[in-house]
């Protein structure tokens, strides 16, 4: 990841690639479309069409046979064609999901970014850097389902007698009472977030580490000559230099966390107060078979993801422009 440089103006960005293609390479009018056709056709069928269709379905009733107004009950509040959105935005279970997703964002994103930064900084100073980073990174290769099994075992709870879960064994060894980590409200969401942090810290660490290695050596040297201690160097030199990277990492994590599904599905199924948006959408579609509501939740999901996505893509584009 390159250090930010003077950004080219918009005009330069537009001009450059056109001039890039040598004139001699001009080809027939249809050739490009031959190359593009397979990708475009597949994308239109699998992304463009379903997105528009989902948007449409979000205004329809339970099976898409009529407008959503039809699902309004007499004497109940009704939002007309936006009836599904009344559910997606105001129902108790969705409010719980929004609350949980917010907790997920606050804790998982900050957890991953901070642990990632800490480990990247520490590993940068030792000889076994590669091994340490591999260990932290390894959970990224595992599925959320596999991680779910690993952690369900860590959280195993036995009301009385021998504990076979590491965490409760530790609690008992320290003189406490075993806790049912996955069914105790509030505690369980935190327990799930720990799994998320365990899985995603490697991602944050890798990107942060590359940025740290890109901090110009002469600036670090200069700070050292000026008598700055490691903390001053970090806060005054390293941190400002890597902050654009940290922002990308943070926004990417926010996007991922908003769409979190597998961990919750496999470990609690969204029960005991752990429901999140994406799991709710799955349940609406494939357990209660309410297409309208599921589509409305999907639309809500894309709307909450949009700002973070926008920041991310602009950031990536300006970076490839500067390269």
């Amino acid at each position: 990841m390159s250090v930010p440089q003077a950004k080219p103006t918009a005009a330069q960005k537009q001009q450059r690639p056109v001039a890039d293609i040598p004139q001699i390479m001009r080809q027939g009018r249809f050739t490009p479309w031959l190359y593009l056709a397979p990708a475009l056709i597949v994308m239109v069928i699998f992304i463009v069409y379903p997105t528009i269709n989902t948007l449409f379905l979000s205004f329809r009733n339970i099976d898409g046979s009529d407008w959503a107004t039809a699902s309004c009950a007499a004497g109940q509040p009704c939002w007309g064609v936006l009836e599904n959105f009344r559910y997606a935005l105001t129902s108790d279970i969705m409010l719980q999901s929004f609350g949980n997703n917010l907790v997920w964002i606050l804790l998982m994103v900050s957890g991953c970014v901070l642990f990632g930064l800490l480990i990247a900084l520490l590993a940068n100073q030792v000889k076994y850097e590669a091994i340490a980073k591999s260990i932290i990174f390894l959970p990224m290769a595992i599925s959320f389902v596999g991680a779910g099994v690993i952690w369900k075992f860590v959280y195993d709870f036995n009301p009385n007698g021998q504990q076979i879960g590491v965490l409760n064994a530790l609690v008992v060894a320290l003189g406490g009472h075993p806790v049912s980590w996955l069914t105790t409200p509030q505690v369980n969401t935190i327990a799930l977030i720990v799994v998320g942090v365990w899985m995603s810290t490697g991602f944050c660490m890798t990107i942060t580490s590359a940025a740290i290695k890109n901090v110009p050596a002469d600036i670090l040297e200069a700070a050292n000559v000026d008598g700055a201690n490691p903390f001053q160097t970090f806060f005054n030199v390293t941190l400002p230099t890597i902050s654009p990277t940290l922002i990308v990492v943070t926004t990417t994590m926010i996007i991922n966390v908003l769409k979190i599904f597998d961990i919750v599905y496999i470990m609690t199924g969204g029960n005991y107060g752990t429901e999140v948006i994406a799991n709710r959408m799955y349940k609406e579609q494939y357990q209660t078979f309410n297409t309208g509501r599921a589509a409305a939740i999907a639309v809500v999901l894309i709307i909450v993801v949009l700002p973070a996505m926008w920041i991310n893509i602009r950031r990536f584009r300006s970076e490839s422009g500067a390269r």
Partner: protein
Amino acid sequence: MPSLSRTFGKLPVHVILIGLCLLWLIPTIGLLVTSIRPFQDVTSTGWWTVNAPPTGQASYQTSCSSCHGSDGKAIAAADLTDPNLIQKYRRSTSLLALLKKDINGQPHMGTLTVPDQQTLADIATYTRRISGIDAHPTFTINNYIDAMVGYRGTTNYVTDCAAGTESSDLHCDASDLQNSRGMAEAFVNTLVVAVPSTILPIIFAAFAAYAMSWMHFRGRFALFAVLVALQIVPLQMTLIPISKLYAQIGLNGTFLGIWLFHTGFGLPYAIYLTRNFLGGLPNELFEAAYMDGANHWTVFWRMALPLSVPALASLAIFQFLWIWNDLLVALVFLGAQHPVLTYQISTLVSSLGAGWQLLTAAAFISMILPMLVFFSMQRYFVRGLLAGSVKG
């Protein structure tokens, strides 16, 4: 001594870093150790006690070994390694009754005090073990065999097959590897899903990215902008219409359906990444090739593709791991018809709450290939990660 002070100056760094690494490793080690322990041990003792002496051994040494000897064979008339004898005193209550009775007018335990109920239970466990009634090794691969064939009984596949008490869906021969509940079949299914779903989008993306970076046509930039925008669409947004469409044309539960879905969903990111790479190649290269009489097809096939191998490799690893580890898409489009590894584990989790030996072995089977791919191609993996991370 400067080197010493440097070493001690870094001590906190080492302590924190190694501590964090251990913290990250412990859950996975727990899984691995549990997956190779016999089921009798898994539910009764924690995996971290795997190297501890067997349950009851210490109590046995205190209360019994002074007469029966440390191996239990010291009194020939009461050989504790004799299964027929131990069979009569399997539990703590029968053992207690025995210990309270006099032997030849003397208390059974002489001057020693009779242990409490829990200790007796431990001793009973120990004597059952040394007598061979309940013998089992410390480590076993039976859990893996059970997971591979989808065994769901109360002991294990090998024992059941030897006794001829296997369930009706098992045949105790190689055909069990095709049992639809087994991880072996799921492993094959996952491969069948993942390989074409990795290759197809990369081929399509390479063609499209080449056209977008080295061909003249109107709307080139607009098209690329739309493509970047398509990356915003979350998976969830596309599931409902596609599964409805598949239901109409009969693609639900077919491999073709899931290949196409993964291809469509993987394309925007794949094109984005490949175009950035191809567009960054020096244009003198392309010009020179043209001067030599090459056309677009030969340039694409003989030059651009080979040059993009590193970028495509990163992409392939990402796409492969993402599909291998995916649960949601497999759940929606394949389900039970062709169960993949993640699907199989998710049903295991919900169907038998405490079958940890099976669950851990199954989870490990699902992780072997991703971990191998990861370790052998870490370089490409990291490179791909750094090249762009908007995928989702």
